[in-house]
């Protein structure tokens, strides 16, 4: 008797466990289904407009309501558009020069903050992320006021300065992360092998930082390419960049030409961003 009671409760327990397990797995499957479906919806929501945009850039019809046939004519229109051409040229000038300048300054800041101890370090640290957390619009207005104050005419130069201002932070943070993972062991080994600070930097630190620096530069370039808010506030006549131009074009009408242009920008971003990420990942592995 005394034996049976525990064994019976044991059996009941087992059965309950079994049921509980079954129930749990059922709920799990339901959850999975729900989340898979949910994820699917999110993806659809994210990517449907992009797919539509790309598809309609090849649509013969002027209106995005009907599919009337495949054409490359909008791309032709786009390439013949002198205003778009000028805007593209400006965009590339701004992106290239602001990338170069912000990469140099950002890298120097990263090295300074990461390798040297000084009293104002927390302040510098804080200032470094400011441009990232300040809303674009606030930054745009601040820069505009600043340029007005120093009586600088708005044009390509002011856009470049503005882009440098926000890009420095991104470059510095990416390069800093790379430095932090590198540690000081390599630099110590170099100084142990008779390299002075200068030699240590150029022979060891810098080569090891290159992936991070390139990653940061690519990131800056991408940000610069599609910035609208800050550029819009700091550009003057004749210094329109592509994003600003596109917004201007959509004021009148959304034409398939804009679809074509957006598609091209999408493609460039889709190659640049993964490239930047890949460089950073490669840096981490070595």
């Amino acid at each position: 008797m005394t034996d049976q009671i525990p064994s019976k409760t044991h059996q009941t327990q087992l059965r309950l466990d079994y049921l509980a397990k079954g129930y749990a797995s059922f709920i799990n499957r339901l959850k999975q289904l729900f989340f898979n479906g949910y994820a699917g919806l999110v993806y659809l929501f994210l990517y449907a407009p992009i797919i539509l945009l790309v598809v309609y850039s090849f649509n013969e019809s002027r209106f995005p309501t009907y599919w009337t046939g495949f054409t490359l004519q909008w791309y032709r229109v786009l390439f013949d558009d002198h205003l778009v051409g000028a805007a593209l040229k400006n965009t590339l000038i701004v992106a290239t020069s602001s990338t170069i300048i912000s990469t140099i300054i950002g890298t120097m800041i990263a090295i300074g903050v990461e390798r040297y101890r000084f009293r104002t370090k927390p302040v510098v640290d804080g200032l470094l992320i400011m441009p990232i957390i300040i809303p674009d619009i606030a930054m745009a207005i601040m820069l505009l006021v600043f340029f007005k104050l120093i009586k600088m005419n708005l044009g390509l130069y002011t856009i470049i300065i503005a882009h440098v201002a926000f890009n420095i932070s991104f470059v510095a943070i990416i390069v800093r992360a790379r430095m932090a993972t590198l540690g000081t062991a390599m630099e110590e080994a170099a100084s142990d092998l008779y390299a002075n600070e200068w030699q240590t930097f150029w022979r060891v630190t810098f080569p090891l930082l290159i992936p991070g620096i390139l990653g940061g530069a690519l990131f800056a370039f991408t940000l610069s390419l599609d910035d609208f808010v800050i550029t819009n506030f700091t550009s003057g006549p004749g210094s329109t960049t592509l994003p600003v131009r596109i917004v201007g074009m959509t004021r009148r009408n959304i034409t398939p030409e804009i679809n074509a242009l957006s598609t091209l920008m999408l493609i460039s971003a889709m190659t640049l961003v993964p490239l930047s990420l890949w460089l950073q990942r490669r840096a981490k592995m070595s």
Partner: protein
Amino acid sequence: MTVPAVELVNVIKHFGDVVAVNDVNLKIEDGEFFSLLGPSGCGKTTTLRMIAGLETLTSGEILLRGKAIGQTPAFKRPVNTVFQNYALFPHLTVERNVAFGLEMHKIPKEEIKKRVAEALDMVLMGDLSRRRPNQLSGGQQQRIALARALVNRPEVLLLDEPLGALDLKLRKAMQLELKQLQEQVGITFIYVTHDQEEALTMSDRIAVMDEGKILQIGAPQEIYEHPNTRFVADFIGETNFLEGTVSDINGEAIDVSLDDHTIVKAHSDLSVQKGQKVGVVIRPEKINLASSGMVEGKVLEIIYIGTDTRYVVQLKDNTSITVREQNLNSTQANKYKRGDKVGLNWDPANAQVLKK
């Protein structure tokens, strides 16, 4: 007497509140294989890094062949380091890694080439000169790190647990190889390890450290046979420790009375007084088991370990004493059974008196 290769004078290092190295004095002779031995966190690496110039001194001075170098930056010190994690440059080939120090010294290209090849041959890595560090095994990286340091013919080579990351078998082989290499090149080695066996087999002299202080410096045999503190005795090999008071003094021969009034015969290099509380250190292999003896107890445990048998004997006051007997014949291990009453004897010269 010649000038020591390296001398540390009252060296102190603080990291904030942490005292990593606490008033260390050391003289390391030219051509010596010198080991810094101690438990984790005792300040070995910090000491080594201060000699390399990678860490500043809080106070004190370091002399290299009699010249003060405490304030000299690392890159100007004729000293090289083999780092624990090797710290090979991942972006350079093996060859360029080894050439690095020579290039910094602006040695002519031809000579660099020759010396790098020699160094790689010396560590048996001549075939791998074009590889990158991440294409090498741990043991190979270790050899390259060694070549990269030795190629510069430093006055002193610093090694921070260079064999720590290798498996046991490779470590044993490398110990012998390192020792031979050191004798061959004649460079002073300062070797950091927390492995007492490694220190004993390789070193000319050992400094045992604990909590930033050096407890004892001496040849392996001296440290093993005549530890000056219980810590050193415990850290270097297995040991037994008895406590009592001095009951009789006869030159260096000392009688120590244990708490249960058993008299134990021992030996002391230090001057002690009658009635003084002392400890007696005796190694397990220096004790003989018999049916009766100086100290008596009963067998608590018998552990057969092939070459030896280990007996744990419990004394009347409950102290456990470990005894090692060599298994000279196949039935040796059966001589005593658990619970047997046994006596322990030893040559008083092998029992070391320590002040408390």
